[in-house]
């Protein structure tokens, strides 16, 4: 298990390096940061000077190597746009994104899992048929459209919820949280729903499918034959056995929640990393983009690791088998 964790973390370094390499290869195509940094009256000579100073004339391999060697010392450079250390910017933005992503994931789970269970248990009832169909609408519309529609309804027309931002935040060390203030809680509702909608649909369908599958297994039949109560069967036995695939997908999706957060954060002006990334792209702010991507790569590896470790917790069989096949 320890070995497994170490192995994964080693792999994560490789993954992050590759991500960074690819990232630098593509930075040539995101545009020219210089024209964003300087004003329109800056002379060509000054621009050239700045370009050389930032190392933008070097090959992407050289830029990549410099980034890696600095990053290894914990220095991710200064943002072109904000002239502040990237690490500081990211630390400021991370809490917002993580809070939003986890709230959305939680929401998706809290709503998706019970709905999935219900739909799995009552396969033919019209309620579950309706639920299944309606939930699909959530995945049929682009996120930005859903976001704007929600803002229109709940902020502009009804005036119940704020249309943008994170509300008041509380500082706990370097972490900031909006979850401890009423204003912050109100602010997270709409973005979290927007972000969770897709995942909710997915989880619900997944749980349903797994539930149907598990309910047909022999051990459920045997549990029935032992006269266990429906509750014990559905929740104690069936649900727990659907967890492994649900954990896998939720883990994978948590990653894409972070990716989707880019759009949700833009629509709701949520001051997180996604918004920061989009702003960085439109500014061609290479240090910010590179660090963000590497961080996302790291998140993915960590999430995958956590998912795998959760397997151990949930499924005792894997506690042995995993050891024999940890390299796959």
């Amino acid at each position: 298990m320890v070995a497994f964790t170490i192995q994964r973390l080693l792999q994560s370094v490789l993954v992050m390096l590759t991500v960074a390499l690819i990232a630098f290869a593509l930075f040539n195509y995101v545009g020219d940061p210089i024209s964003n940094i300087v004003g329109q009256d800056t002379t060509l000579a000054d621009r050239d000077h700045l370009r050389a100073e930032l190392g933008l004339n070097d090959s992407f391999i050289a830029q990549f190597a410099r980034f890696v060697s600095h990053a290894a010392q914990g220095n991710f450079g200064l943002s072109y746009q904000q002239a502040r250390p990237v690490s500081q910017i990211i630390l400021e933005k991370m809490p917002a994104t993580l809070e939003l992503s986890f709230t959305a994931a939680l929401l998706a789970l809290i709503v998706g899992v019970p709905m999935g269970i219900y739909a799995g248990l009552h396969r033919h009832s019209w309620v579950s048929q309706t639920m299944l169909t309606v939930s699909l609408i959530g995945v049929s519309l682009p996120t930005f459209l859903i976001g704007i529609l929600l803002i229109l309804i709940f902020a502009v027309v009804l005036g119940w919820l704020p249309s943008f931002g994170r509300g008041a935040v509380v500082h706990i060390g370097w972490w900031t949280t909006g979850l401890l203030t009423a204003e912050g809680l109100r602010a997270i509702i709409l973005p979290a729903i927007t972000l969770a909608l897709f995942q909710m649909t997915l989880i619900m369908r997944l749980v349903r499918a797994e539930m149907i599958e598990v309910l047909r297994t022999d051990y459920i039949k045997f549990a029935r034959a032992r006269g266990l109560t429906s509750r014990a069967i559905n929740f104690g036995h069936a649900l727990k056995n659907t967890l492994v695939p649900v954990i896998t997908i939720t883990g994978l999706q948590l990653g894409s929640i972070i990716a989707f957060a880019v759009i949700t954060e833009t629509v709701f002006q949520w001051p997180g990393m996604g918004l920061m990334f989009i702003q960085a792209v439109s500014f061609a702010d290479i240090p910010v983009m590179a660090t963000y991507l590497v961080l996302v790569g790291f998140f993915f590896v960590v999430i995958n690791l956590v998912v795998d470790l959760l397997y151990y917790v949930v499924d005792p069989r894997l506690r042995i088998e995993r050891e024999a096949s940890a390299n796959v």
Partner: protein
Amino acid sequence: MPDDTILEVNDLQHHFDVSPPALDRVLRGKGRVAVKALDGVSFSIRRGENFSLVGESGCGKTTVARCIVGLYRPSAGNIVFDGVDIGRLKQRNAMSRVRRRMQMVFQDPYASLNPRWRVRKIVAEPLVTHRLVTDKAELRTRVGELLEQVRLSPADGDKFPHEFSGGQRQRISIARALAAHPDLLVCDEPTSALDVSVQAQILNLMKDLQRRLGLTYLFISHNLAVIYQISDRVGVMYLGRLVEVATADQLFSTPRHPYTQLLLETIPRLDPPDGSSGEREPVAGEVPNPIHPPPGCAFHPRCPLANDRCRNERPSLLIADDAFVACHAVHEGRLSSRLAEPHSPARCD
């Protein structure tokens, strides 16, 4: 090698590597771990003969079969088929020529047929693969013949496997195995998933085919009654080794190895011997872990006759009367029978 020997297996070994990943091993200071599924098995089969392997679950029967048909590469030892050492063939071409003459019928009639192929295509696959028949119409007739040979109708070729019962599927498997005119048919528990009446049909069919086509069988089963009915000679396996090889009549009338005796005793009987309650004595102990097989004779923990020698020294397969037995007790005469020359080769043909 006598002329009529079609297959000869010499000191066959097969080990499964079940070690944890490299990093794990380093961190925990552990070495590689191997399951010695086969630990020196030797036997040979004559042309037209029906040789059977019997033994409890996990003793390595399937592994023998798979090594022979080339699904596993042996860790050591050689397999000589019709004078050719298959282990040394490197080229796919040469391999496939030999392969064609050696076919296998699997245990599970439900898993051994591709569920998405029509029966016609399944049965024709060996013919197509080895380009034995290229003409479409001829292929159709040939498949029809094969199906008829196993008592199905040619019209069944248009159906999918799921439309057949277990026994019928096993017939399809046999038809497929026969398609390329093999000499040797390896049957790994072909009837253990079937019920008795269907089992009888399949066993009879196999016997008929053997007679008609002059086939040689390597037959594997854990069901002693089936073995008794179908085999000419029987090898009894225990934990990756052969412990006794004898003709079927000998084995069932005078089992020598204590393990063979134990096996025969555990068969449930239709007609309880007079006076007994009809109750079998449950065997003590289970098959040991093949990762750490007991030293000496692997059977000694369960053997009523085990002594110190059995615990330390591994017995070899030696002639005892007309049979070959690997047991110190037998060889020492502790269990009847007289000892043969101690150095006769460990071969049983």
